[in-house]
């Protein structure tokens, strides 16, 4: 199979959660790919499966969730086929992750320096104490004062500082990919800008790719090279950031952009009508069809595949032809 991304290629990823209400099909055939050093934005409404996708790539889906199908090729390795032990050599070394809530993502009873050192110690197979000079360097790099922070506990840091620590911890092992799951959503607006700037600067310096999970189109416009739009557990549109903002093809992407406020914009903000579907019992065919302003008969029965309609622009919508049509096999 031809890989669409040299660094990461996710195809047909399915994840379900087994709950008392029924089986939640959180991801139903997600497609995603990235080149080395690239920044991909993964966007969509709350509950569309952005975070689940990132956790599935890291293989951190917990009970009652389960990865059921799909392929994750990262750096030449098929991650879903690795043993847990080999997967632990990928996690935190070749690929690391930062989260939405920086303060609760740090262990409250361990000193910050130790927690960063732990990551380095593991990748270099040395005792944690020996990593401290490197930890100090890393703290400087993320704009913190090592003398003040090394021996602090997480509760002594602000949210912004904690996220800097998390970034330092994520990049301390020089991974090829940093997954940032809503890294700025829990922070003040001014701090958000600082954190994005820091991620930008460090990615430039260290050459790592960044997968940025967000619901904020503004953040995407500012930071990302490419964008993958997700809706209800499906990948619906993929393009470069400029292309996507100028010529959105999928009706859902169009709706998302119409709902974003911008300076100088004079027309009314339009919400997409309806709500995100219940994934225990998702709509047939294209999952967006009940809310789609341009719905056709075929959309109610068949699921449109993600196909390339222009060079580098992929969309899953029958408005752009019926090629590669697949029957719904739910």
């Amino acid at each position, binding site marked *: 199979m031809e890989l669409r991304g040299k660094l990461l290629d996710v195809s047909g990823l399915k994840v379900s959660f087994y709950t008392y209400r029924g089986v939640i099909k959180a991801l139903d055939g997600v497609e995603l790919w990235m080149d080395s050093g690239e920044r991909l934005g993964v966007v969509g409404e709350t509950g569309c499966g952005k975070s689940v996708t990132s956790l599935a790539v*890291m293989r*951190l889906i917990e009970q009652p969730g389960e990865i059921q199908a799909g392929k994750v090729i990262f750096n030449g390795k098929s991650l879903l086929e690795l043993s*847990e032990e080999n*997967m*632990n*050599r*990928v*996690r*935190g*070394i070749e690929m*690391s*992750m930062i*989260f939405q*809530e920086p303060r*609760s*993502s*740090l*262990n*409250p*009873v*361990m000193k910050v320096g130790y927690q960063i050192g*732990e*990551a380095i110690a*593991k990748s270099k197979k040395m005792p944690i104490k020996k990593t401290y000079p490197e930890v100090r360097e890393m703290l400087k790099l993320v704009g913190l004062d090592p003398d003040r922070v090394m021996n602090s*506990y997480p*509760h002594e840091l602000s949210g912004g500082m904690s996220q800097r620590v*998390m970034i330092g*911890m994520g990049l301390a092992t020089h991974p090829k990919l940093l997954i940032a799951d809503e890294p700025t959503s829990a922070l003040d607006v001014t701090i958000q800008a600082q954190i994005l700037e820091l991620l930008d600067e460090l990615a430039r310096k260290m050459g790592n790719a960044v997968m940025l999970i967000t619901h904020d189109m503004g953040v995407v416009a500012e930071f990302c090279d490419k964008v993958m739009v997700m809706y209800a557990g499906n990948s619906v549109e993929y393009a470069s950031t400029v292309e996507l903002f100028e010529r959105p093809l999928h009706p859902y992407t169009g709706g998302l952009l119409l709902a974003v406020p911008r300076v100088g914009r004079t027309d009314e903000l339009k919400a997409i009508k309806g709500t995100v579907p219940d994934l225990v019992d998702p709509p047939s065919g294209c999952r967006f069809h009940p809310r789609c302003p341009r719905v056709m008969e075929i959309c109610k029965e068949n699921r449109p595949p993600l196909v390339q309609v222009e060079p580098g622009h992929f969309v899953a919508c029958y408005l752009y032809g019926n090629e590669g049509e697949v029957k719904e096999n739910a």
Partner: protein
Amino acid sequence: MNFGQFLLRRLFLMIIVLFGVACIVFFIANIIPADPVGAILGGNAPPEAINRLKAKLGYDQPLIIRFGNFIAGALRGDFGVSLKTSNPVMKDIMNYFPATMELAIVAIIISIFLGITLGVLSAVHRNKAIDQFSRIFSILGVSMPVFWIGLLLLLVFYFKLGWLPGGGRLGFFTYPPPRVTGMYLIDSALAGQWDTFKEALLHILLPAFVLGYNATASIARITRASMLDVLKQDFIRTAKSKGLKRNVVIYRHALRNSMIPTITIIGLVFGGLLEGAVLTETVFSWPGLGRYITTGMLFLDYPAVMGGTLYIAFIYSLANLIVDILYALLDPRMRM
């Protein structure tokens, strides 16, 4: 609030609690319609004799004066003279308490070790065999009365199997080790009398387990619940995303966080141990403070009952103070 202020505040609270206990103990003992003087002299004693003894024991004074004397005495560690043994109550307590303390300490060690192990294992292997075993073990532990488990285990391990001795602190023909702390395990170890040590250990095993069973069950349940809670936290996900091994995640990252509620419960059940000692000591003929108080109660020996109870309350508060200090050591957020 710094640690010093925190400690001062806790000490102040402890004094208030102990004063409260002293009030309750004193008024219950003096208000219930039982007459120790009558009990000592018998029903047919002449009134002069009764009055003389009342005056001697201070029972002729108004209640409030007697309360003042009781508190003043307690502050000096003087609880009066036992009506039954004719010794100063404090001397009796010092005599009997080490046996109880030794029993409680061994019991708490057993229950901390067993309880935390069971709790962690059943959280990590949730709904697997070990979790079910621990659940049944714990339910039995909190629902069976101490004396019944005691008798049952005596029946099995003493009468049927003959593996463990049937009661007391040492065999009938063994001399206690030279007294330093009054705890035979420590004293015999200090004196290098390892045979005595082994004997004392065999004697204490069963009563300590019985006494600690209830505590073991509570500790196991709390540890399980808090461990499950901690394993769901964001920082555990972070630890996993760093590629740390499962055991490192559990024992380095989760365990210490999950110990915070466990430590609280340990402080609380320690009180239960001192209280449970009353029954356990009776079943296992253990000459401790619990038995001293029970006997005192049967003889209307009020100074002994009041003194013994207050002393146990004091040790209990002390245990909780230590727990609060441990708390601060364990959780940096408390140290602010």
